Structures are given as structure tokens and as C-alpha cells.
């Protein structure tokens, strides 16, 4: 346990929604992408 690093830690805990952590991470990253597109469209709309 003392030399624990990232590939040795597998979290057994399931997230409360979407079934897997990978899906939640994807939502966070997609949200960022959508925000960048929205901000860009917002700036362009009033240019």
C-alpha cells in the first residue's frame, strides 16, 4: 500500500448516475466543448 500509484488504484465505487465514471468524465469534457462552441457562437452573433 505504501507505494501506491495510479495504476494500482481501481475504484470499486460506482457513480450515482450514468453507470460508470468514464461516462461522467465524458460528460464533463463534452460540456467544456459545448461551452467553447457556445461562447464562440455568442461572440460571432454580435460581431
Amino acid at each position: 500500500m505504501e507505494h501506491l500509484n495510479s495504476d494500482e488504484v481501481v475504484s470499486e465505487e460506482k457513480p450515482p448516475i450514468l453507470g460508470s465514471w468514464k461516462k461522467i468524465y465524458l460528460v464533463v469534457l463534452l460540456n467544456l466543448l459545448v461551452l467553447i462552441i457556445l461562447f464562440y457562437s455568442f461572440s460571432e452573433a454580435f460581431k
Partner: protein
Amino acid sequence: MRRLDWIVLATTLLFIVLYGIWKGRGSRNIKGFLLADRSMKWYTVALAIMATQASAITFTSTPGQAYADGMRFVQFYFGLPIAMVILCITAVPIFHKLGVYTAYEYLEKRFDAKTRVLTTLIFLVSRGIAAGITIYAPSLVLSVMLGMDIRITSIIIGGLVIIYTTSGGVKAVNYTDFFQLIIVMAGMCIALGVALHLLPNEISFTDALSVSAVMGKLNTVDFSFDFSNRYNVWSGIIGGMFVALAYFGTDQSQVQRYLTGESITQSRLALLFNGLAKVPMQFFILFIGVMVFVFFQFVQPPLIFNPVQAGKVKSGMRAQDFRQLEEKHNNIFKRKSEEIRKYIQARHEHDDVRVAEKKEELQSLQQRYDAVRTEASNLIAENDRKSDAGDTNYIFLSFVLTYLPVGLVGLIFACIFTASMSSSSGELSALATTSIIDVYKRFIKREASEKHYLIVSRIMMAFWGLYGIAFAQYAGRMGSLIEAVNILGSLFYGTMLGIFLLAFYFKQTKGTAAFVSALSGEIVVLYCFRFTSIAWLWYNVIGCFVVVGVGIILSAFEKSKTSGSLASL
């Protein structure tokens, strides 16, 4: 401020202190006092994380920055959601499973004591100075705007924080942070509502947006790649991600927040919520600044928003020059205001030729307007070399004080005090925890009762609080300290991040290799700082890459040496 404003301000602050004391009661050991017994739900941790990161200057300076420079600063946060995901995969499960109190404690378990000592020292020095600034910077702004002595504002902020942190520890910090952020965001929503309400009747919301776009304030996204341009999508995603990884992954003031989560799931959800909400929140705060900018296109703003500095120049040797600039500023303002109305009329009439013509005229007027303000700032700098010539910190509060109705002014000032207290309390509890766990308990008194450690923890909280207040009394005499602190942070953050990346991802790296690579990274960063013109934001990236690179090479060398000696046996 009128009497009702003072009542609102005092009641809000009193409520927060009493709430902190009440929610933080019952800590009987250091696990309760420093980690809230790892019992926090994700939403409390999430708002505590956001409140700790968003200092009072975030809420005073960010709208001012949008007023002066537009919304491009939002791009700096684009890397944060990516960093949150990386930390959820790596740091959160490791820290939780090892049951550590601090991030540096993990480094001793993973490497050795000297690596822990090095990172602890880096944290205590850099965060110690930053904690002083966290109290000093808003104290200065509030003292100028409220006409109070800075000693009083800093004692109020620091003193109130000491009361509830020494009493309730991290539990009090997290619960008050939760409420503080809600109060601050409510106050900011009201301020936006008032700014929109105060616009002339004939100006619609889309007109306001159109005017701000013409003046170059809706510059939210810039896809061009340029190393000299601090804010574009690429520097935001890459540079911002490194800064967020270092801050949330290695700085105890944030690590401590998510270590209080009752499980890995709760801590992860808290960080991911930050990843979802931080960018829109910054956009919203910047947007308030843009609407304040539009408001000041129809109502005459002062030439310089810092009343103390403007007063000093007016009574100094350059008073005549300043008055001339004021006159110029007033004339340009009047022209600009008239032209904006004509532009909006042309827009309503769909007269594209006139719209284009007025756009050009407005942009040229805005350039002249900005040039006059720059000249005025230069006069201030000449008049008082130690002063902060920029006035972005004062724009939003000047608007609040002058144009918000009675009662709301008190609420907004309460928000600023509150924001300052939330970030200070997070920093003080992190400094106290590191002092206790990584110094006192590790090197001074290894075996003692829980009661003893609890008393020393409370003393440490009070010590760091008093240190912050004392720092605020003298910080003004040190010139442009805030920039120096930012640079100081960048000198160490890259190295810290590099060490943690070696710990998380490079199983073969041992203690000495990590320590030597950290020193190498620090030497390279200091070399860049002293002998090159590389912008300090890039020090984080350089430091991190050098530490990881040297760490890999040394580990490979150690491995070949070990296999060589085994073969000779």
C-alpha cells in the same frame, strides 16, 4: 454607505461566524478538526472548493477586467475541467485509500522523508505569502471604497476567520464556504440585474450586447495560436490545465477540501461539479463587468475609479495635467454616448451602411478613450511610484457604491468580505494542517494525545491567521507585491506538479531520483526566471517537464545499475 447598508453588512458577517461556530462544534480529535471526519457530502465540498479558489479579488477585479479588456480572460479556465477529470482518475483515489491528511504525507509514503520536507517547505513559503495577500488585497480595496483604515478592514477579515476556524476547524471552513459562495453569487446576480435595469429605456438587452461587441468586449474565444498572447483557447487549455492540475492536485488548500469528502465518490463528484460550473461562473462574472461597461456608456464614469489615487494626483504636482485629461475624457465620453445612440438607431432601422460607419467611429472613439485612461494611469504611477496605477479592482465597487439602492450596497460589500473570508479560511486551515501533520507531528512530537494535537492545531490556525493580519499591515510598503507573489507561485508550482506526476505514474521512480529531479526542475525554472524572457505562466509547464524528464532518466539509470549488480552476483 448608509445605516441600512452597515446593518446588512454586519448581520451577514455575524451570521457567517455564528453559523461556522455552530456547524463546526464537536471536533474531539484532529481527524475531526483537520478533515471533518471525512464526512462531507459532495455539494458541500464542491462549493467549498469553488469558494476557496474564488477570492474577494475574483469578484472585484474580474468585472473590472471585463470592463477594461473584455471577456477573453474566461479562456484561462478552459483547462480546468480537463484537470478535474485527471485528478479524479489519479489523485482522489490514491489520497483517499492511503488515508492521508496532506498531499505531502503521501509523498513520504511513496518516496521518502526528504521529498516530503521539500514539498512541505515549498507549500508553506509560497502559500504563506499568498495567504497574507488574500487578506491584504481585498482589505486595501475595501478600505479605499469604504474610507476605512486598512488596519481595520484586515483585522475584521482576519479576525472573523480566526474565530470560526479555531473554533470549528475544517468543518466550519467547509460549511461557511458553502454559504459564502451562495451569498456571493446571489449578490452578483442582483448586481447584474441592477446594471441591466439602470440602462436607458430605449436600450434593449440585445442592443447592450451589440454595443459591447462593437467595443471589443465580447472577445470570449480566440483560436489564433500565439505565445505572446496570454489569453487564447490553446494557452487556456494547455497552460490553464497545468495551473489547475498543480493548484488542485498539489496545493493543500484545495487537496484538504476534497479529502473531507466521505468517500471517493463524494470527492470526485465535488471536483467534477467544479469542472462543470467553474467556466460558466467565470463567464457570468465577466459578463457583469461587460454590462457595467455598457452602463457607463450612458452615465459619465470617473476618469480613474480609485478615488484615493485620483485625489492624490489632483493635489500633487501634476494636478493641471490630470484636469486636462479629465476634460478630454469627458468630451470623448459625450461624443461616444451620442454615437452609440445613433448606432443603435441605425441598427433598429436595419441601415447597414450607417451601422458600419458608426461602428468604425465608435471603435476609434473607444481607442482614444482608452488612451486617455492609460495616460491618467501613467500620471498616477509617476505621482506615487509605490501605488497600484491600475484601477480595475475599483470599477465594480465604484458602480455598486454609486448606483445600487440602499441595502443592496451593504449586501454586495458583505459578499466581498465573505469571499475574502472563504478563501482565507481555506488557506489558513491548510497551512495549519501542514504545519501540524508534516512538521510538528512528523519531526517535533511524534507521540502525544489527541487532545494535545487538537490544542496545537487550534494554536496553529490562530498563528497563521494573526500572521495574515500582520502581513496585511506591512504589505503596502513592499511595492507591487501581488505580481511578485504570482511569479513566486509559478517558480514552484511546476516542480510540485512534476513530483506528483512522477509519484502517480512512474512506478520505477524512487525517492532520491524524485528529489534530484525536483531540484533540477527548480534550477531550470530559476534559470529561466533570471536569464530568459520567457513569460512566467510557462514556468509551470517547463518545471513540470524537467522534473518528469530527469526523473525518468534517473530511474532508468538506477534500474540498469541494479540489474547490472544483480547480474554480477
